[in-house]
């Protein structure tokens, strides 16, 4: 009896300490994210510019239903999401698995080289991507020499090939970034588990799917949520490589928001409404991912 009471006291003491650990961070997020988000939400129910704001109810949200550019940009980012995130995360996992092998030569070099794309400046890499995929660029020359195509492809002028270029660019830039999360997590997995599997006679593929993937689930969940969020808020690549073209085939939601806020006659309240639709969408996807992946 006394022991359980003691235990209970200990538990609640620990819980309080736990709260003390999390509250400073939570407070900062409430001040610097949720308070401004609240302001933005309030703004999304208004119309007007600057000091001339009027309450407009759901008008901004109703407007979304007939906004073709919004629909196009939403479809674009969902296409990028469906194509790119699975490819990138699988590739990142495979690379992390290969690089976690202690007998691998040049590990440091491979690890550094694969990470570097996300550190490379956007200016130089978009310059390179645009010139590589030019009509007389490197990619067409390569494919022609390999006899894979007979006439050069105008990559950035065709809606689907332009989308493909964006997917390639995203994969190029972010695979190594995701890989280092997996690598860090693999470091935390006890090496003896792998050794036991080797003695067990499990092949490389079996070890990968039966041990690595389940063990990495918490981090896979993290990268899935972050990549989903990143893709839905995509801006850099489409802004710098295709500028949303051809004919809006690659325009992203964030780019549309940017135009509405800073290039066009400013429509912050409408931009805020779009932000909230994205927010709800990402939150919904994240919720599903948490359901599937966040089990202890």
């Amino acid at each position, binding site marked *: 009896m006394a022991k359980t009471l003691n235990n209970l006291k200990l538990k609640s003491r620990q819980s309080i300490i736990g709260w003390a650990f999390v509250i400073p961070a939570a407070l900062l997020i409430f001040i610097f994210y949720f308070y401004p988000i609240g302001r933005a939400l309030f703004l999304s129910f208004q*119309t007007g*510019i*600057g*000091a001339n704001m009027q309450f407009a109810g759901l008008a901004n949200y109703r407007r979304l239903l*007939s*906004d*073709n*550019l919004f629909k196009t940009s939403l479809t674009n980012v969902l296409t990028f999401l469906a194509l790119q995130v699975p490819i990138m995360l699988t590739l990142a996992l495979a690379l992390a698995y290969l690089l976690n092998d202690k007998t691998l030569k040049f590990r440091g070099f491979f690890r550094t080289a694969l990470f570097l794309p996300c550190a490379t400046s956007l200016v130089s890499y978009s*310059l390179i991507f*645009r*010139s590589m*995929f*030019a009509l007389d660029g490197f990619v067409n020359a390569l494919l022609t020499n390999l006899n894979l195509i007979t006439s050069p492809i105008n990559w*950035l*002028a065709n809606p689907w090939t332009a989308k493909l270029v964006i997917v390639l660019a995203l994969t190029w830039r972010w695979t190594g970034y995701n890989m280092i999360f997996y690598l860090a997590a693999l470091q935390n997995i006890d090496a003896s588990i792998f050794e036991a599997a080797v003695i067990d006679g499990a092949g490389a593929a079996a070890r990968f799917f039966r041990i690595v993937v389940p063990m990495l689930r918490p981090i896979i969940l993290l990268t899935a949520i972050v990549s989903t969020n990143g893709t839905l808020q995509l801006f850099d690549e489409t802004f710098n490589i295709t*500028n949303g*073209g*051809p*004919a*809006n085939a690659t325009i992203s939601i964030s780019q549309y928001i940017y*135009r509405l*806020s*800073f*290039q*066009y*006659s*400013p*429509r*912050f309240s*409408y931009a805020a409404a779009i932000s909230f639709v994205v927010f709800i969408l990402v939150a919904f996807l994240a919720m599903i991912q948490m359901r599937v992946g966040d089990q202890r």
Partner: protein
Amino acid sequence: MRRSQVKVLLCVLMLSLLTSSAAFANQTVTVWAWDPAFNLYAMEEAAKIYAEINPDVTINIVETPWDDIQTRLTTAVMAGQTGTLPDIMLIQDNALMKNVIDFPHVFADLTDSGIDFSQFADFKVSLTSVDGRNYAVPFDNGAAINALRVDVLHEAGYELEDFKDITWSEYIEMGKDILAKTGKPLHSIVAESPDLIMAGLQSAGTWMFDENGDVFIANNDVLKEVIEVYVELVNTGIMVQVNDWEQYITSFNRGTVAGTINGCWIIGSIVLPEEQKGLWGVTNMPRLERSPNATNYSSQGGSSWTVRADSPNKDAAIDFLAHTFAGSVELYETILPSSGALATYLPAGDSAAYSIPHEFFGGQAIYAEITDYASRVPQVKYGVYNYEARDAIGVAIAQVLAGRDIDSALMEAEETVRFLMEF
């Protein structure tokens, strides 16, 4: 570094002129502009000139790119903190009307400030005024030029003169011949960039909005003709499309095309390759045929100086501009040779500096030539929704080149712009 030099100079002058009485005691006028070879340089020279007139005022020049000026301006106005903005801002002409109308009371009305706006090129004054009130001191000249490689023309048996005062069909006719004989297209363009379309519209005194500010895209015959010309230029191979600005510059710097059509500021990029010295010439751009008011003159790009209305240094800022950009021929004479910054201040055009021959262009007196073009550019109003319309036209071009008919593409563009205007 540059700024501190100006400051030091001003301090020295201040000390030496301590006794002189000035209207604005110890004020600092802050300026945002973005091009060190061009408008920033001009601003520094202006500061030097003004230091002799009014040494009590310090001009503090802060390099800020145009896109960043727009972002900061919008943020400051939306946050109700216009005090964070500088006293003088350089604003792109195509965004000026939008900012003046959307953000009333931010920009000072300069109409009755004593600045004589009749001394500037008409088209520029038209771009910088709203409802008959002037909101900016016009600065650089974006008069459209057709710059051509005279050696390539000679190779095909043509002269620069053959391209003066011509129509687009004459241009295309000669372009086909030159392409066949030399293998060189006449010019290049960034794919989906509507710049050439815009230049074509203004050359006929038309825009994507009518006098009342309503969208004028779907039934705009001038626009339709410009797009037809554009499509033919692409289809005949006379104009090559490239993916970005860098490839555009490279195409004439490397001589893969025989020329370019753009605002006259493009000269700064044309003169880069030393080996092409003396090979270039400048003439006016081709004109439309079906459009009634068609001319061979247009404008592309350009910017102007605005003053913040609620600034405590407003009067000093206006006085500074009045004595320099709107009153000093000396300033324009100083900045022209090293920066090629062509003025829209007409008295400067009579200056001897403007008629000196330019070696890169085979000794042609291009500055006098371009100043003449500028005086003939038709007036238009870019309007509040200019960027919205530009983007919609860019999409329409891509659709038309992919096979869509012009009418339905323009119909969709008009609907897009209308939708963006309705709030």
